[in-house]
């Protein structure tokens, strides 16, 4: 179900904001849908649209950045609510990679489960990329196996990712399936584990 991620090359859109929260990524009026798809049209809705019309000043709306697949942002990206609608919207819009100095916890987790690779780089590297990405033709290539980010200008950086997440993402694996390999152990555990409220269930 998740697209496996091996390597990716794409244009970079610089979103110069820190603490971009999930309310901004996908405003709550779009959380009422009960499907997983089709959220891309609502991505950054309140920034992208002004009274139903496209806000021309917002970077994602500039024609030259429209086909970018790598999002560059400042620290603490994805803070706020746990809504997985945020990575759904980013993915559906066409982003496969997000690069920022740091990410909020739940968002970071959610990204992997939806085939998006969040990459943290050092502040100086981020600053440099912000300069480079002023040129809409600027491209980055991400190689997940070797954990590198390379630019069309010779920029090169490596990034950290734990082996497990990397493997799951590369294979596009379903985590539930992998946990159920240990189903017997879960059953064993349950036999000796005490949960007090269960005996008060009417």
């Amino acid at each position, binding site marked *: 179900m998740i697209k496996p991620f091996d390597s990716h090359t794409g244009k970079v859109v610089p979103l*110069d*904001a*820190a*603490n971009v*929260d999930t*309310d*901004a990524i996908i*405003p*709550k*009026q779009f*959380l*009422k*849908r*009960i*499907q*997983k798809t089709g959220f891309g049209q609502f991505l950054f809705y*309140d920034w992208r649209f002004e009274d139903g019309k496209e806000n021309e000043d917002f970077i994602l709306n500039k024609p030259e950045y429209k086909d970018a697949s790598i999002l560059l942002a400042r*620290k*603490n990206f994805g*803070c*706020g*609510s*746990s*809504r*997985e609608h945020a*990575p759904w919207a980013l993915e559906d819009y066409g982003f496969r990679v997000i690069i920022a100095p*740091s990410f*909020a*916890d*739940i968002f970071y*987790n*959610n990204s992997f*489960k*939806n085939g998006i690779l969040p990459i943290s780089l050092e502040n100086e590297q981020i600053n440099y990329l912000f300069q480079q990405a002023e040129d809409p033709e600027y491209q980055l290539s991400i190689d997940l196996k070797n954990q590198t980010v390379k630019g069309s200008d010779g920029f090169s950086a490596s990034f950290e990712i*734990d*082996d*497990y997440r990397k493997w799951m993402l590369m294979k596009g694996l*379903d*985590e*539930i399936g*992998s*946990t*159920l390999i*240990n*189903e017997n*152990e*879960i059953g064993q*555990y*349950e036999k000796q*584990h*005490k*949960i*007090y*409220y*269960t*005996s*008060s*269930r009417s």
Partner: protein
Amino acid sequence: MGKTMYEKIWDRHLVHEEKGQPGILYIDLHLVHEVTSPQAFEGLRVSGRKVRRPDLTFATMDHSIPTLNRSFPFKDEVAQKQVEALDKNCRDFEIELYDLNSRNQGIVHVIAPELGLTQPGQTIVCGDSHTSTHGAFGALAFGIGTSEVEHVLATQTLKQYKSKTLAINIEGELPQGTTAKDLILSMIGKFGHDFATGYVMEYRGDAIKKLSMEERMTVCNMSIEMGARAGLIEPDETTFHYIKGRQFAPKEEEWEAAIQDWKQLYSDADASFDEVVTFNAEEVTPKVTWGTNPGQVAGITEKVPSPEELPEDQQLAARKALDYIGLKPGTRIDETPVDVVFIGSCTNSRIEDLRKAAEIVNGYKVAENVRALVVPGSYQVKKQAEQEGLSDIFTEAGFEWREAGCSMCLGMNEDIVQPGERCASTSNRNFEGRQGRKARTHLVSPEMAAAAAIEGKFTDVRNWNVKKIEGIRQ
């Protein structure tokens, strides 16, 4: 070497561990609501999976429901669909649902403690970031995404990496006239909005021990606003006293066994935390946020800061925030007018919060041009407040008195702050657009919100002339 409380809970719930992989952690209590669950149930159907432990799963409706007229049809068709989907999912998968007709309905983080479901030492998850609230009981509680909701439904476990631990030692006592909300806002202001990212944070010290359960919940609720994975407070007599006698609390011999067990839940004296910070509670004053994240906060007697005064890495964000919130540097906080007042949300909608707000409101009228509403956290809170006469105090003053739900905390129902309006809110997030497009949110305590409603502007509640409530029916 000793263990921290977090490590003790972790060890008790570790089902499986393998090198180079996250551990499999057992989940004791899974709370479900209408917004983050439909896609998870859909996932189960698509892959032909069942809910492993429906008996450890509880659902309610809170986020998108109306708080005025709750009978079908809703004005908002899409919200109704979501509520209907939850109803069907709970029936199909045999999960207990506290729906809009249930006496147990309410905001998910209000009802679980109220029913006695939240207990020390448990692992608790919910598709909602403010699950951190339950950490007030010494439970390891955190928010998860919808894929993880599906994972817990299917396996009753989660794959988790162990978090780093952070101890926050709170010294001294909260000054008179300040609240748990001011305490947590002060800490976020001091340490920063993303300070605790990746950590499980334990609140320690006398100031914490003296807090009631409601106040501890307010503090833990906002742990996530400091970026923490979860907040924890060591369970003690206050905790046990709160749980005792509630619907799902252990009874008789089980109660004694439970207490013995829960008393083991503390960080050993020789346990080591990855990070330790101290905070002086004596510094706390009534707080009002001036920006668009909870760390952008000032004391009621202070002025809106000018971005240049702030550390360089905060200046850009501060400029953007002030632009959005429509305040000039140097403006006195206590001269800032409000248009809307919202008392509610999982941070501050429990009975104690409503009592404190009512104490301020009693004998006064809501200022002209201010729209003020109280949205109780649960059906039970609502009923109790009505019995105690609190609802009369609010309505006589000109507040709207609503049914339980999240309401204006996130504006998914019709309770929305209009563009450009300024709202004093007891909720937990002042993000752009949180309470409505272009809505300007200022986070405050229930007392400060109540006083702002009366004055029509922020005001120092420490100077409030409280008119004693006669014949209170508590």
